[in-house]
């Protein structure tokens, strides 16, 4: 972990799975951790939407990109106080840059470095982490995850353009996170709740993974920005019985020990 021009004692971590196939959506979990001795006020905008957080992506061919959010927004600052040892967690969809260009165009090992404007004029830089993007088993889903309409739909949690067919296919047969986000984009509240339940508690041969469910939800409808959104509330409702503190940390956007 490194930082530059940063608030003393504050560290930034990006957690991603070691390997994710190209027919699955990669979600990263970002933590802002107070390793110092005193309470520190930090930005609570730990999401891609508001633009304080970006992730530099270096591909296997050495090309670099910047994972971000394609819709430029205007919003208020939000801050939170982090006590010693506390962490603020957020999650981010690592799909596209701010021009909707996919940041993982091909299989291979990618290096990811998160940067976060933790306070005005103070930027944290996390340690580089790597993820292996593997060829997926479902070429159609992998292609769909390069399609602008599909990408916009997943990021907007709403069906956009001509994405309906691809979303329907992924919502039925997709990899777990792609399935959940596709359902979120096209689904009724009930469908969203079911998809979240499947992801969190397992369905069929899919293992239980409540943190992935919370992270996927928060990646596109982050706390603080979309608190109270009915789609978000449906998922949270489905995860009520989850006791994993990390899940609560991601969902409520409050400081937690991590």
């Amino acid at each position: 972990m490194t930082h530059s021009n940063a608030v003393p004692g504050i560290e930034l971590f990006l957690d991603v799975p070691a390997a994710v196939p190209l027919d699955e959506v990669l979600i990263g979990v970002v933590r802002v951790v107070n390793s110092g001795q005193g309470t520190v006020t930090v930005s609570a905008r730990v999401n891609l939407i508001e633009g304080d957080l970006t992730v530099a992506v270096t591909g296997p061919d050495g090309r670099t990109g910047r994972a971000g959010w394609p819709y430029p927004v205007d919003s208020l600052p939000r801050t939170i106080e982090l006590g010693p040892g506390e962490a603020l967690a957020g999650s981010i969809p690592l799909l596209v840059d701010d021009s909707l260009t996919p940041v993982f165009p091909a299989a291979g090992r990618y290096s990811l470095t998160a940067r976060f404007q933790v306070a005005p004029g103070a930027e944290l830089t996390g340690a580089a982490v790597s993820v292996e993007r593997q060829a997926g088993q479902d070429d159609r889903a992998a292609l769909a995850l390069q399609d602008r309409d599909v990408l916009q739909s997943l990021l907007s949690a709403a069906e956009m353009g001509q994405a309906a067919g691809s979303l329907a296919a992924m919502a039925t047969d997709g990899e777990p996170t792609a399935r959940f986000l596709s359902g979120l984009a096209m689904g009724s509240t009930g469908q969203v709740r079911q998809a979240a339940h499947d992801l969190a508690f397992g369905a069929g041969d899919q293992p239980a993974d409540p943190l992935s469910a919370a992270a996927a939800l928060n990646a596109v409808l982050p706390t603080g920005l979309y608190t109270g959104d009915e789609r978000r509330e449906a998922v949270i409702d489905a995860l009520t019985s989850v006791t994993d503190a990390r899940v609560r940390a991601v969902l409520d956007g409050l400081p937690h020990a991590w």
Partner: protein
Amino acid sequence: MCGNSELGDRQHGCCGDSGNEPPLVFDDNGELVTGSDTLGQLRSPLLTGPCSLATVNGSWLLTLSPLRGISAFSSEIRGPLRIQVTGSALRASGDIYVRRFGLNQQLAPALPNDLPPDQPTDAGDATDGQLATLPVNGAPGTPTYPQFPKNQYSWYFRSTGVTYGNGALSFQLIRHLWDRTSQEFVSQDTGQMQLNCRRSLLTPFGIASMTGTATIGGTKYSVTATKTSNLYRGCQVEVDVMTGRVFPATATIGSGAVTSFRQIYASGGWDVTVRLDELNVPEDASLTNAELQTLLAGHRGPAPAGDPWRLWLLVGSSQGTLFGVMFDEDSVPREGAVGFADGTLGNGSTIDPSARNRPLDEVPSAFLRTLVHEAGHALNLFHPKHDVHAPPIGTEIMNQTGDVIGFATVANPYPRNASFAFAQHDLDSLVHAPDPQVRPGWKPFGWGHGSLSSGLPVPVDASGLVSADDAEMLRLELSLPAQVFVGEYVVAETVLTNTGDIPRQVSTRLNLAEGDLRLLHVLPGGAVEQTRDVVVACGPRAMTTLAPGEQLRGRMQVLFTSEGVTFSEPGMHIVRAEFDVDGFSSVRSDRVTVTVRSAASSTERDIALATLDPGVGLAIALGDFGANEDARERLTTVAEDHPEADTGAACALVLANSFARGHVDFRTADTRLASTDDAQRYLALAAKGRSAEQLLTLAATVASPVERDAPVVADALAQVKRSRRGKADVALAEVIAEDFVESSAR
């Protein structure tokens, strides 16, 4: 900007320049390097005098004419020229649009889109007043802005050092050439332009014009320029308001001044006419991006005549706690933005007490700032903190509200601390960036904040990179499957329609084999290919008359073309067709996206294994395997194992066509005899399970367009006539067969 009182010439015609004074010289960045002591001095009383800098400043309609002999073609080479004069800087940029036509087909002149004064509105005095009503500094009282169709865009230029003295404007320029297929700048070269601007001292209120010469890419031109405005660019903004929300027509800002959407953009050099349209967009408490896109489609008014630049702005409810978003990222991007009236300012100590916890539309200056900010994104401006050029974060318009609040204090709280102006970096972009970057509905958000494309200059003339311009009153449509797998048989269909009200003489060669039609193919990696048949025949151009409303239709296989396997690379391919209508004008289709994937199922892999063989590809392109026995075997395997797939049927029809006639290999003297039985067997294989129309579509596309007598077409038609098929189906098949032999207008 050069103010009227500061540098104007309404009384004496000129300032900032004198015939006896040294010229003003500006460097690459437009900064004044010599002669600044001449600013503000008055002229000698002459009948004509050089234009003032205030007259030079603004928007001009630039027209170039080649200084060379008359050719068979005429072109209109014109576009906006923007000359920006600030206190000590002068720079120029422009965008050139080219339209061609033949000597015997003089088209109606295409006038630039006038930007009308603010439209009458049903919202009382919510619309801004006009910025100019009287001629000032050589600009017409009603300003206009040269805006031309996107499909005529040819190049962009900007100055690299300007001198101005005694009415003579001279500058070196860099030109960036535009490729209409890839929609990118692909190369650059240099040139220079000299313009002379003099005005009558007796009638100083006329519209200013300039004449001169230019040398660009090695070609000389005569140049004329007519002033159109004292600002640089114009755009119409339609504002729709959700029920119960308020558009801030004006707002009092921190300085105590009253400003408006239009005035803020005027300070950035843009003449933005704001038209408050609907005030009762139905209530929806929370808006997703999909819903916003739907509102854009459903509430934006129809495009005005001439397709002027325009933007739709919604005063909406909310999306989470956001204040606004530029949500339009569809295939025609950056045409819509929204400000969320229900968003609330916080109660922090750096928020003005009167604004704390108030809905945004109850704080007019804050809401106006957000709306101007979101519209700025639609003009491709970035948040400074995300801009690749890394301009400083501050309090100007394109900073996020959150960042502006970061500069607020208890004594100078938000929104009083906000600057209602664009930062210099954004001003440069608004005034001088190429049209594709800033015009709503053109390049996607994010384009243009890196450097323009580089590369070796290409010596071309001012017409740009294309040899013909889009014909008017003709429409070309291209149909391709949305998704194919590598190795799949692909049929393209083109339809040429006369959309005008007079008959048109057009080429009948609506195929890839006779030179008039080509496909412009952008591969997933961005490379551009021109696609034609593997064999291109030469011969006289057959013409036909296309009456108003009539269509000409062409069908062709594009599995194997001059590119080899056309869709060999998985990913997103973009294809458009270009048809040379009559030798001097062309028509282009819209872009069609084809998603290419790898063969997935065992059937697809079997097919691809055969069809990706170059010999098989060539056989399919020619409609005959010739003497290639390996190709015949591979075709046979696919035809017999997978006749249900169109690729299998196409292979069967290649075999049917081949066996229906003999073949002599003159290199080896080997002869292939005709085999009627085999021909019929493969024809029957292809026909099974297919309609007459489907069978003839395949037959007419496997046969080479230059072999009008290819037996497979006639045999297939005979086969469907013999079989029990519906009359309508057979009639469609007959049309396809007739079109193969000779394209007819219908």
